[in-house]
């Protein structure tokens, strides 16, 4: 005689197909994964020549600091010349010339005494054609701010290149 039990039958799902797909997905993502270094931007505004003259009629022009980056051959930097219409200075050639440039910008903004001077001051770079781009970025870095004890101190936010790119 057959004895009936009250226990319900255990329903078992077949997981094999799902696990197969899941593993294939996992392998796909692992194979296509690339560790990429974080990238950042320096924003530069390069208004068109006609537009910039129109704007000058209505807006007060920002205080301009001209920075000339001079190449010393093989694309390496030789000197940094700074002219802010009051005084002209030359930094380098030395290892610390970019730090000196940062100190100069910091001193200048502090001397203005205006907390908004970081917004009202603009830097125009005049760069030798063959100077390596990494030095240009270093110079932009130097005028944009400095890192003190892990905190960023912002200096000048407005950066532009001199429009005439001589073909060197």
């Amino acid at each position, binding site marked *: 005689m057959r004895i009936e039990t009250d226990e319900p039958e255990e329903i078992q799902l077949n997981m094999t197909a799902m*696990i197969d797909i899941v593993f294939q997905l996992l392998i796909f*993502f692992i194979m296509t994964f690339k560790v990429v*270094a974080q990238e950042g*931007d320096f924003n*530069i505004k*390069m208004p*068109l020549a006609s537009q910039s003259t129109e704007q000058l009629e209505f807006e007060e022009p920002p205080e301009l600091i001209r920075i000339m980056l001079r190449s010393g051959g093989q*694309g390496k930097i030789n000197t940094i010349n700074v002219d802010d219409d009051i005084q002209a200075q030359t930094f380098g050639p030395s290892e610390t010339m970019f730090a000196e440039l940062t100190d100069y910008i910091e001193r200048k903004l502090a001397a203005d005494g205006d907390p908004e001077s970081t917004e009202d001051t603009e830097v125009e770079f005049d760069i*030798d054609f063959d100077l390596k781009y990494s030095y240009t970025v270093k110079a932009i870095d130097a005028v944009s701010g400095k890192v003190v004890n892990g905190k960023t101190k912002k200096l000048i936010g407005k950066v532009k290149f001199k429009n005439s790119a001589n*073909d060197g």
Partner: protein
Amino acid sequence: MDGISKYAMKFNKKQQSKVLEGDLTPMIDMTFQLIAFFMLLINFSEVDRAEEISLPVSELAVPPDGRPDYQIILNLEPGGNVIFEGQRIENINVMGPILNQEVSNAERENVAAADIAVVIRSHADSPTGLVQKLISKCQDSELQSFSLRVKEYVNQ
């Protein structure tokens, strides 16, 4: 008595055969978490960034906040070749028609030329003059907003 105990032993030994099943739940949980992790980090915009470009390093560059309405990414090699959308253009001077095409594409999406973000990914060893030349070419196509892309400096 001996005979009874002999049969009892036989009944005790009889066992039901069972299918051995490992508990797969933790493994599946982990696998799904791994898939979610890789899905979130995967970057399909590889066409825009040329791997051969070694960007200069900067401490102060700000990571871009969000994607602009329309952007053009120009990769500049030290020799002056421009890589745009996976295509290598060997002379900056022939960039004009390509940029004009991009500007008209953006206008079709109601983005003005002045609002197009031009991202310049130049190799660290490229002459800066070439970067300026590229910017100048972009300006000829009414482009005004430029970003110089750099690699973030990681303090070891």
